[in-house]
């Protein structure tokens, strides 16, 4: 057996992720996913005002910069039985949906594209031909020969400068790169355009949330941004028109650049529909329904579906039972009082940090023991994948009126069947499809908001339970949000107006999970097995599959103490 390949840091993700992989015969035989950073936010939240929790929880992640704020707010509202006004729910949905479009575009172009696009090869392209190819793919207005020439010249000047900066040491020229120089050039051109696009599009969050990253108008019971068509200090027609223009620009960019580029990559890498599947079991909580879900339940009437698909069986969708969610720490650097392999529900969760990994600097983790700062999240005892692929799979299996035709159309374009979706490329494709779905729906959400305001409803906050003295002595609640990276839940226990326990079970906790007490691997680990490796010193193929999940490690590593007994113990072996 050859020594394990180590990829650490995995770059172009959020946070600190390490992959160790056993490669023999040009293929990954086994893989271990390790999160290498922990902050202890869980313990920091204990004893604080539950109304402040969203602001702390938001800092779980600056990439998923809205999702933890929302899930936290919903957890407190669930605990205290607060229903925010319709305006507030629609504002949250608009911020949430635009987060998807922003986040997925950035992922595709800036975090994932360089796994498929050889930047150096673009120098050899014929710009005229690149424009012809680009125009054959879409009517994006910047697909001109002039633009392709300018980008190539800019790239040329950059390379001649001798300082490649962020492009230095890439796997350029690797045999797994297959796009023509012309397609590479057009992708680089859109990479640069997408930088501009994301910076402008995210102004939606500034208009409705005060700023981005970390919008600041959430508040338990509603939103802190007022609505008044007759005031310049509130959301007025001017604001709504600006938001409409930005939402439309998102829809245009997705239709004219993202989707055509995705299809071009999909057609050039058909072998990746047979690599990187993994668990084949999927979970999604659902979201963006407008109506308030029942207390303690997921949103089953949203634009995004709710449900479970097991073992790739698309003939059946199970409803989600939140009480079937558990976590164990058999392979994570924590200890449980009743034994590390005991699966605990989030409300009963414990967090006692217990680092038993190697003393840095180290070369390898002891993967036969504990090897990560993640707990192993499981649904009904099994590992499940969450995220775009889960949403499209569940929606497809359920025959969702919007999702089914969207997926069928893409499968037809690529000339593959539904089974091809259980793959690295399927995951990347699903992300693009749902971006289109949500960009389409975003304008409808805005229409609903405008109609509601036009009807005279200016309410943004349900203030009856704002004062803590109006709360019961004890309460607990869960907030669900279907975040861009997958199913997210925050669980809070409130006692005497203070946070007694807080637990976040996060998309990347599901996907980047280590083995559990039964030895079942997590989604990354399962997906990597069978991945071909052309050159162990340049493991480009590992990046492709890991990036297809869009990892977010700061999110993943925070299990929050629900019993209010913070104990931290560090043992270095």
């Amino acid at each position, binding site marked *: 057996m050859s020594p394990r390949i180590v990829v650490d840091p995995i770059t172009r993700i959020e946070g600190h992720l390490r992959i160790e992989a056993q490669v023999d015969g040009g293929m990954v035989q086994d893989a271990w996913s390790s999160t*290498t950073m922990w902050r202890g936010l869980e313990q920091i939240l204990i004893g604080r005002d539950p109304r402040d929790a969203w602001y702390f929880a938001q800092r779980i992640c600056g990439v998923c910069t809205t999702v933890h704020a929302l899930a936290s707010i919903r957890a407190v509202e669930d605990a205290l039985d607060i229903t925010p006004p319709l305006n507030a729910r629609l504002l949250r949905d608009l911020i949430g949906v635009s987060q998807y479009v922003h986040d997925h575009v950035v992922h595709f172009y800036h975090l994932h594209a360089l796994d498929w696009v050889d930047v150096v090869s673009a120098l050899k392209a014929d710009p005229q031909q690149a424009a012809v190819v680009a125009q054959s793919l879409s009517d994006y207005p910047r697909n001109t020969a002039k633009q392709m020439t300018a980008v190539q010249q800019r790239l040329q000047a950059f390379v001649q400068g001798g300082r490649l900066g962020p492009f230095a040491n890439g796997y350029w020229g690797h045999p797994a790169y297959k796009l023509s120089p012309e397609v590479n050039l057009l992708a680089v051109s859109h990479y640069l355009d997408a930088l501009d696009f994301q910076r402008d599009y995210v102004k939606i969050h500034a208009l409705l949330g005060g700023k981005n990253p970390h919008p600041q108008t959430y508040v338990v019971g509603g939103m802190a941004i007022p609505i008044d068509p007759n005031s310049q200090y509130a959301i007025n027609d001017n604001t709504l028109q600006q938001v409409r223009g930005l939402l439309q620009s998102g829809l245009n960019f997705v239709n004219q650049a993202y989707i055509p580029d995705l299809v071009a990559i999909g057609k050039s890498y058909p072998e990746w529909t047979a690599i990187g599947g993994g668990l084949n079991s999927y979970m999604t909580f659902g979201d963006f329904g407008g109506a308030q879900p029942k207390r303690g339940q997921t949103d089953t009437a949203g634009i995004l579906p709710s449900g479970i698909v097991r073992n790739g069986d698309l003939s059946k969708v199970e409803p989600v039972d939140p009480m079937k969610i558990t976590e164990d720490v058999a392979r994570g650097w924590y200890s449980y009082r009743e034994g590390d392999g005991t699966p605990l529900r989030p409300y009963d969760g414990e967090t006692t940090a217990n680092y038993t990994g190697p003393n840095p600097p180290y070369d390898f983790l002891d993967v036969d023991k504990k090897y990560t700062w993640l707990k192993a999240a499981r649904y009904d005892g099994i590992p499940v994948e969450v995220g775009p692929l889960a949403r499209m799979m569940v929606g497809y299996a359920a025959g969702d009126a919007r999702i089914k035709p969207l997926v069928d159309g893409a499968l037809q374009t690529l000339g593959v069947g539904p089974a091809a979706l259980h793959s690295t490329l399927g995951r990347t494709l699903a992300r693009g499809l749902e971006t289109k779905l949500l960009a389409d729906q975003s304008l409808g959400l805005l229409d609903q908001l405008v109609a509601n305001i036009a009807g005279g409803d200016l309410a943004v906050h349900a203030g009856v339970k704002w004062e803590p003295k109006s709360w019961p002595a004890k309460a607990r609640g869960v907030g669900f949000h279907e975040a861009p990276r997958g199913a997210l839940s925050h669980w809070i226990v409130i006692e005497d107006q203070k946070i007694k326990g807080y637990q976040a079970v996060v998309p990347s906790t599901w996907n980047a999970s280590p083995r559990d007490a039964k030895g079942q691997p997590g989604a990354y680990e399962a997906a990597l097995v069978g991945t071909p490796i052309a050159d162990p010193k340049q493991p480009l193929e590992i990046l492709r599959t890991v990036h297809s999940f869009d990892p977010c490690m700061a999110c993943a590593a925070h299990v929050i103490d629900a019993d209010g007994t913070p104990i931290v113990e560090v043992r270095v072996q």
Partner: protein
Amino acid sequence: MSIVPPAPAPSQTASTANGPIDDGLLARLFELGVDRRSFLKYCGVLTATLALPPSFAPRVAAAVAAADKPSMVYLAFQDCTGNAESMLRARNPDIASVILDLMSVDYQETVMAAAGEQSKQARDAAVGKGGHILVVEGSVPLGGDGYCTIGGESAQQILKKASKGAAAIINVGTCSAFGGLPAAHPNPTKAVAVGDVVSGVPIVNLPGCPMNVDNLTATIAHYLTFKALPARDSQQRPLFAYGDRIHDNCPRRGHFDAGQFAMAWGDEGHREGYCLYRLGCKGPSTFHNCPILKWNGGTQWPIGAGHGCVGCSEAGFWDTMTPFYDRLPHIEGFGVDSTAEKLGLTVVGATAVGFGLHGVGKTLQNKLGRNGDEQSTVDVTDGSTDLGSAGFGSSPAGRDNPDGKAGPA
């Protein structure tokens, strides 16, 4: 305290820094697809952000255009990547990417193509040459090396190695500047600021949660223009960005002085843009240029959108400014019973003192500009104390506490 980073290698800048822009200097920018007019406009924005007189715009332009591509090494430790995301929001599309082009961003995990061993090689090569600008996001855990490792090395090990030979360290966000969220009570990982681990390298702190990218690009432009870091307060925050209290520049200040407060989210006062003090706004204890710069290309800022300031650029704000929705506790002379009118009137007095101090700060900054070289760090602690006695206390772990990094345990 004089802080003079090693001068970059001689370049065209040296001889032309004080003159008008040489067209030749812009040739490289034209190669990068930038037109002269938008470039000059951008330099005007930078100059304004730095609070320099408009006559400095050509000089900033010359320096930025001719810069010898200094290396940037960007490290992330106990972070949320919010500051890297903020960096992606750099405004003035073409020009902001020129700034990226003009720096050589040799290590930045969120965007770099290389991974694993190849990324570490890129980092070590850049650090080996020295003279790099080290940008750091996230705190450093001292409670155990296992709390944050990258490539098998601990945060401390990497930071110590990468800061060797650095021209300067720019801490982006409150976590690397002051310890931030991980250092909030009870600080489970014993997280500290970068400045608690590294010594001997000049530090600029750009706190904020996250930092506003306009302040980062302005800091870099200042460095390229003057070959020196901007003047800073006792907590190493540049005065051009953190010299003024949010409250003193707040567009809602008139309502505060008039005793007009929003009392509930969405009430009439809230809709009319009244002061958010009674809903917990921490603007009176926070120093940051949010009201001037705003966010996302000047689109909006939290107070403008209806939510109070939480004091995110102040050391220890997670402990000293919470609960966020409680009124500031340190306003002398005002109990719960004080009338709004009384509060407003007293603060008018504080404003007068504030304007006086503001003038002093500007004078010092102009002096820095005129000399074109390094100035001693401007200490405005005394002024802050004066302001406090006139109405507001400073934030408890704020400017009056020179080593107030992690906040009370």
